[in-house]
């Protein structure tokens, strides 16, 4: 299995001197193509920081980060922006859709940035929205959708450009349990069908159990990594 994420000795320090906070203390991690992996750990353990660094939203203080074969070290802002646009999808805890765009416009935004022709954009997005269960809701604005529906739009937005990796920061945190289950079903289905690699952080034990691989972070280090049942038993 080819590695989509390969990071070695990654540290992240916020601040300096006495007030320095060591968010990551030397993380080594490899995520293979098509994995459906979850990260868990208490607040402040470094989950979001690690996702941000893998997603090229933040830079590591030291160590190497390779995503889909690209070493992120030393890349400029424009190149990182292009990498995010073309190879990484994001799903956020608060959905974070653009409120003035419809479901269809939100989902097609990344394709528009990539210069995909309008007719192709619209066809692909309509098909995808139907696939995530939002057929007929293309013209609704985020305020007209439930939390679960908004997160489905966000998931559609994250995979519409067929990225190598989708990073999801607690994607089920703001929806009820049943909706959370259906979102995990959706993401797993997309992984199975399209081969998209998912890496997400979560606090929800049910979500952890449904991943293929569970990483446990504690104080900026990966302290457990394996099949969820094993990790949870040890944790």
């Amino acid at each position: 299995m080819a590695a989509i994420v390969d990071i070695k000795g990654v540290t992240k320090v916020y601040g300096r001197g006495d007030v320095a906070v060591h968010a990551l203390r030397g993380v080594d991690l490899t995520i293979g193509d098509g994995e459906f992996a979850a990260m868990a750990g208490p607040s402040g353990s470094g989950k979001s920081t690690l996702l941000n660094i893998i997603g090229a939203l933040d830079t590591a203080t030291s160590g190497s980060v390779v995503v889909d074969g690209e070493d992120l070290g030393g890349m400029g802002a424009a190149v990182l922006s292009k990498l995010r646009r073309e190879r990484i999808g994001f799903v956020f805890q608060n959905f974070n859709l653009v409120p003035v765009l419809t479901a269809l416009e939100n989902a097609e935004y990344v394709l528009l940035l990539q210069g995909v022709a309008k007719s192709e954009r619209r066809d692909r997005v309509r098909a995808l929205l139907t696939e995530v269960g939002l057929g007929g809701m293309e013209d609704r604005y985020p305020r007209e959708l439930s939390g679960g529906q908004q997160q489905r739009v966000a998931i559609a937005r994250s995979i519409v450009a067929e990225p190598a990796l989708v990073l999801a920061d607690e994607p089920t945190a703001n929806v009820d349990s049943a909706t959370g289950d259906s979102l995990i079903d959706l993401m797993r289905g997309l992984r199975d069908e399209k081969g998209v690699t998912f890496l997400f952080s979560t606090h929800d034990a049910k979500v952890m159990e449904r991943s293929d691989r569970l990483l446990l972070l504690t104080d900026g280090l990966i302290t457990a990594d394996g099949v969820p049942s094993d990790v949870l038993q040890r944790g």
Partner: protein
Amino acid sequence: MMARVVSVAVLAWRSIWRHRRRTIITIASIAFGVTIVVFAVTMNEGVYSQLIDDAVRMQSGHVTIEHADYRDAPAIDLAVDGVHELRATIEALPGVEATKLLVLGQGIARSGSGAVGVAVMGVEPEVEARTSPLARNIVAGAYLTADDGARVVVGRGLADRLRLDEGKKLVVATNDARGDLVESLYRVSGIFETGADEIDGYVIQAPLGPVRELYGLRGDQATQLGVLLDDPDEQRALLDAVSDAIAGTSAVARGWQQVLPELSAMIRLDRVSDWTFEGMLIVLVLFTILNTLLMSVIERERELSVLLAIGTPPLQLRMQVLTEAVYIGLIGSVVGMALGTAVATWFAVNGLDLRGLYDEEMTISGLAVSMVLRPRVTPEIVMTIGMIVFAATTMLGALVMRRASRIEIADVLR
């Protein structure tokens, strides 16, 4: 590329309307500011235009042809020769409304009640009656006619000091072009009252012929050949054409600004003061706009961070924020220009009547100002004000855009 531009335009347009009331208030404040400034500037320009128009029509036109040395030391012997041929040449130029011949001299006016220093204006009565506001301000008797011989019109102030009435006689004593002491008897045809003491107490007008005789000038001589224009804004072009036409003679062409330097300086000074006040008003409006634009970026930092996170090029995001400012500035300026033009045009047609507020005539630089004010509305004035406000709003957008470009995605999304 085109799709991205459209996307920026659409996102920016929809974004400004997400807080409809706030955007409307901001646009209204821009529009109100532009309206006020357009009205104030056009009103001032209206007063200036009226002053200039009265002054040039009463005196020697928008363009004055006179002896090259006359301005340095006005003397009756510095007259222009061959004025009839010159006049024919000038009148053939496009944009010339009328020309007028003048003989301007000094003298002492004497009646049985005393003597007073006066400015003597030899004029063509039929031209003055058509063009000069002085001829329309006769309060007793009648203005001069072409057939009048030794008759004069005098100002109310001068008439009071010399106890003159219609039909009374006065003697004007002066030095002629050869330096000889001469005098001539005139009968008062009428009394004018412009409201300006400097004119009503000092000026007498008489037909050109008798004044030429008094000063010993020939029939083809005058101290000034005045040119009135159809469009005062065409002064520069006509000045050049006239200068070409009189090249090689002892005469020169001067704009009214050189002939009436005090009036010109007063208007320039007044304009600076007006624009300072109006500039302050614009600055106040800009603070409102800055507040709105800044708020709209600060409260959307998370959304803008998400857009950056999913791969929006930073330049595109900056363009979106700038475009929002452009929309607000453009709508506010256009609405303000339309409203300002409508209000100013209404007053230009109907006049702003301030006569009830003032008992006496107001004068500026010795010229009476009508108390019925009429704005002078021109596309240049309105466009200039609109463009200034629009450009300033766009610059504010650029300032706010810088803030948007400094967003730390990870910090905001944490």
